[in-house]
């Protein structure tokens, strides 16, 4: 029996729109849990452009992606949201009625939640590992080709090929080298963007003859029934050669895919979720969609629009969470009640 977490609202995603919605829900005494496949809050702002300046956040002539996320986290601190990182929401089951909705949310880490409303703030979808376009690679996936290392033991005494030049590729090179039969790191250029100390450690292993580094690309695979026996390696214009290996771990970064959201019974329009523009509710009462993942006439994929959408969705969520309470609109500038919640009174 898995533990079940009961809460008012589950927010799918932890990007800027999701974070600000925590604030708007918090002002209305609505508790929430956020689930994100990434290891940290901030969504694309943290993952794609933490250092990039953003110029169209109202009141901030210029702020970086990371700066905006830090500010949002500070802003929602009084409401103590619970984050569940490194988890993909796999199932969303409708339990209640249209008037009194209830949902069960399940993640790939077997965490389950029951809640009264769900806010999908999943941006461009889930960040999933990019798969190299090597013909027939699918047949090897999860048997001998892996995009992440979950259990190191599965790699013991194997000939391992790791492809990539970033931190994931270098970290796993250093972690797996001691237990591998032989490890080969392949990168398209002899220049690595990973942390310099890991690059140096790798170069020392290569110099000591304890692993191989080859500059080029993998262009094909050899093997049988999902079990890899070799990878075809090509350097520049030279002919491809086969490197014997039983495990291949490509690290080509992340890409956004809609993923399981497509199976939740929501209407979709070209991988976007249509919503009404008064409450940003989907075709399923109690399920809302805000930020880059929704669509409506005039939609703009701007962070500021996500903030607006979350604010309005929160008003309708209040009706589901507190059906008997009348909601009186208040300002944070003048309401002592709201200021108490924010801890400034």
């Amino acid at each position, binding site marked *: 029996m898995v533990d079940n977490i009961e809460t008012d609202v589950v927010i799918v995603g932890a990007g800027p729109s999701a974070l600000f919605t925590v604030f708007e829900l918090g002002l209305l005494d609505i508790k929430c849990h956020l689930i994100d496949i990434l290891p940290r809050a901030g969504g*694309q702002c943290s993952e*794609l*452009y933490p250092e*990039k300046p953003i110029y169209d956040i109202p009141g901030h002539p210029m702020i970086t992606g990371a700066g905006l996320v830090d500010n949002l986290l500070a802003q929602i601190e009084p409401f103590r949201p619970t984050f569940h990182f490194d988890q993909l929401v796999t199932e969303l089951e409708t339990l209640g009625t249209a008037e009194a909705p209830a949902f069960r949310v399940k993640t790939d880490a077997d965490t389950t939640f029951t809640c009264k409303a769900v806010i999908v703030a999943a941006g*461009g979808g889930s960040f999933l590992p*990019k798969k*190299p*376009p090597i013909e027939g690679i699918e047949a090897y996936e999860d048997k001998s080709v892996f995009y992440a290392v979950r259990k190191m033991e599965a790699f013991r005494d194997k000939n391992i090929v790791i492809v*990539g*030049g*970033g931190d994931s590729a270098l970290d796993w090179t250093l972690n797996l080298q001691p237990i591998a039969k032989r490890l080969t790191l392949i*990168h*398209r*250029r002899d*220049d690595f*963007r990973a942390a310099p100390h890991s690059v140096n450690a790798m170069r020392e292993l290569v110099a000591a003859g304890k692993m191989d580094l080859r500059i080029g*690309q993998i262009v094909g695979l050899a093997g049988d029934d999902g079990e890899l026996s070799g990878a075809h390696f090509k350097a520049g214009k030279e002919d491809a050669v086969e490197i014997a290996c039983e495990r291949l771990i490509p690290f*080509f*970064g992340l*890409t*956004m895919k809609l993923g399981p959201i497509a199976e939740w019974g929501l209407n979709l329009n070209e991988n976007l979720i249509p919503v009404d523009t008064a409450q940003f509710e989907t075709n399923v009462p109690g399920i809302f969609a805000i930020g880059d993942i929704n669509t409506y006439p005039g939609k703009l994929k701007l962070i500021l629009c996500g903030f607006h959408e979350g604010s309005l969705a929160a008003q309708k969520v209040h009706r589901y969470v507190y059906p008997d309470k009348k909601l009186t609109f208040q300002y944070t500038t003048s309401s002592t009640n709201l200021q108490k919640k924010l801890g400034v009174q």
Partner: protein
Amino acid sequence: MVHITFIDSSGEKRPVEAEEGSTVMEAAIRNSIPEITAECGGACACATCHVYVDEAFVPLTGEASPQEEDMLDFAYAVQPNSRLACQIKVTPEVDGLIVTTPARQG
């Protein structure tokens, strides 16, 4: 206006006109060029606007910056003439530019 021709992976040519000062990626998106995704919207953060620059134009489009090279690590079938279209500025010098798009961006 500057003329750019996009050739897709099946060989189909699509000539477009691009505004000076914009980027090749922006010209692709405005003209709905297939095989250019531009997931991050031009922040040099995703490598989904990967193109091959026609050899004759390689000296004119310049070299990839270190940050762009880092991003190209995430692209597939990278060649010496690989660039990210969002990092190629449209200037009068590149008039007639020809770029080919790979079959996949990710």
